[in-house]
């Protein structure tokens, strides 16, 4: 079963624009993580936000977490063609088990 649900399922933007992806989950979490996947290959870890944090930044990435609404968002600023990929949120359950959502496909047009 998948816990995180990403929204939108697909997003197409122009280079330089910002991209926002949302994720909702169902149960209590220890932390929430965002991953990127290029062309159906391995996942790359982007950022981790703990349940007691509300916002976190890493380069052009900004993640927010609202545990009362069980939701998170990932903002990519000043997007580039190289940001084209699938993005997944994943909640960390007991014992280092990650539960992934279905992902958002981002296409950045140059």
């Amino acid at each position, binding site marked *: *079963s*998948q816990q*995180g649900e990403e929204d939108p399922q697909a997003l197409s933007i122009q280079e330089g624009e910002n991209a926002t992806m949302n994720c909702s989950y169902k149960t209590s979490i*220890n*932390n929430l*993580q965002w*991953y990127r996947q290029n062309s*159906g*290959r*391995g*996942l*790359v*870890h982007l950022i*981790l936000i703990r349940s007691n944090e509300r916002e976190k930044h890493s380069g052009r990435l900004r993640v927010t977490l609202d545990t009362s609404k069980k939701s998170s968002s990932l903002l990519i600023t000043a997007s580039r063609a190289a940001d084209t990929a699938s993005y*997944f949120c*994943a909640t*960390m359950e007991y*014992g*280092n*088990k*990650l*539960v*992934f*959502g*279905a*992902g958002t496909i981002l296409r950045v047009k140059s």
Partner: protein
Amino acid sequence: DAGVTQSPTHLIKTRGQQVTLRCSPKSGHDTVSWYQQALGQGPQFIFQYYEEEERQRGNFPDRFSGHQFPNYSSELNVNALLLGDSALYLCASSPLGTGRAISEQYFGPGTRLTVT
């Protein structure tokens, strides 16, 4: 510093056959998790190995089994393959150990299994 490696890259099997996939974790990592990713979906947790034992298991049948070796590398075995087992199989490693904070997992490039 070598990352997570998986072999083979691609594999084609016939329904009913058995398959073994291999994974070497990132240096310094002692925990290996396996995930199945069907086309267009997010990865699904299969199981996790630590200290050569299965520590957690997802909702997968007994046809899926695994093993972890003393050097922390791991194998995923799938028996009696079904067409629905066609997927990308991902291995991820992380440092667990006693007292370590839960952290991100490092993923390998995956093995794409096609069952015909």
